[in-house]
C-alpha cells in the first residue's frame, strides 16, 4: 500500500470568496501581513501498489477535481 496526496485548488482566474473571507478574518485575530488566502482541498488516498500514475490522475481529474474550475497535483508520499 502507498499513500498518495491529491491537492485541489481553484484555478488562479476563479474568484475564491471563501479564501477572501478567511483573509479578512485574519485581521480580527491580530495578524497582519497576509496578502491573500486561497482555499482548496487536500485528499489522502491509501492505494494498492498496482494503482499506476495514470489511474491516479484519472481519479484526480475526473472526480476529486473539476477541471473547469480547479487545478490539482498528485504526490506519492
Amino acid at each position, binding site marked *: 500500500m502507498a499513500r498518495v496526496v491529491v491537492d485541489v485548488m481553484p484555478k488562479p482566474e476563479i474568484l475564491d*470568496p*471563501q479564501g477572501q473571507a478567511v483573509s479578512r478574518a485574519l485581521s480580527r485575530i491580530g495578524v497582519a501581513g497576509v496578502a491573500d488566502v486561497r482555499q482548496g482541498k487536500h485528499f489522502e488516498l491509501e492505494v494498492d501498489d498496482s494503482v499506476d500514475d495514470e489511474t491516479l490522475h484519472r481519479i484526480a481529474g475526473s*472526480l476529486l477535481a*473539476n477541471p*473547469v474550475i480547479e487545478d490539482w497535483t498528485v504526490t506519492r508520499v
Partner: protein
Amino acid sequence: MSETAGMRIGVITFPGTLDDVDAARAVRYAGAEPVALWHGDHDLRGVDAVVVPGGFSYGDYLRAGAIASLAPIMTEVIDGARRGLPVLGICNGFQILCEAGLLPGALVRNAGLHFVCRDQRLRVESAATAWTSRYTAGDEIVVPLKSGEGRYVADAATLGELEAEGRVVFRYTGGNPNGAMSDIAGVASADGRVVGLMPHPEHAIDALTGPSTDGLGLFTSVLTAAAMA
C-alpha cells in the same frame, strides 16, 4: 394540445433532493404525467423528457452535484440526452448536468458568500430550446432563486461559444445576485435539448404559491419538443 396528451416527464430523486415534488406538480400543471425516477435505477421508464430537480444531492459533498452526476440514473440520462431526450436541470440539477458534462461550465460559491433567496427577474435570451419555445426572446420573467453556489463560470472560449451560438438561455436582470459571469442564469446544450438554470421555474406556476406563473412555460414548452422528437 391533443398532440401532447399522455406525455410522460420523469423527475429524478437523489438522496438530498428537495424540489422533486414541486417539479412533479409543475409537470402536472403543464398537462403532462410526472414519473418518479430513482437515482439508484438504470431505468428512465420510457419517459419523453427528464427534469433533474433542485436540492442538496448527497449533501453537496465534494462539489455540488459531483456525486449525483455519477449515480446510476445519470448514465441513462446522459445516453438519453445524446439521442435528443429533453433534459432540464434546475439549481442543483443544473450543477449535476454541468458535473456530468451535459452542459459546459460550472457553478461555484456565490461571490458575496451569502445564500441568496429571493424572487429574481430574468430575461429569456433564447426561445430556440426544447424548454423555452413558449417564450419570446426578450421576455422578462420573475421566478424564485435560492442557492449558495449559483455563480456560473466558464473559460473565455466557452463563454464566447455560448454567446455566439445563442446558448445563453436566461440572464439575470435588475442586478447580478451571485457574480455569475455575463449575468448568466441558464445555458443550453448545442442541440438546445438540454437546459440548466439556477432559478426555480417550478416554484412559479401558481399565484397562490409563487411570485408569478412565469415558470410554467418551461414545462409547457417541452410538451411540444417531446412530441416532435
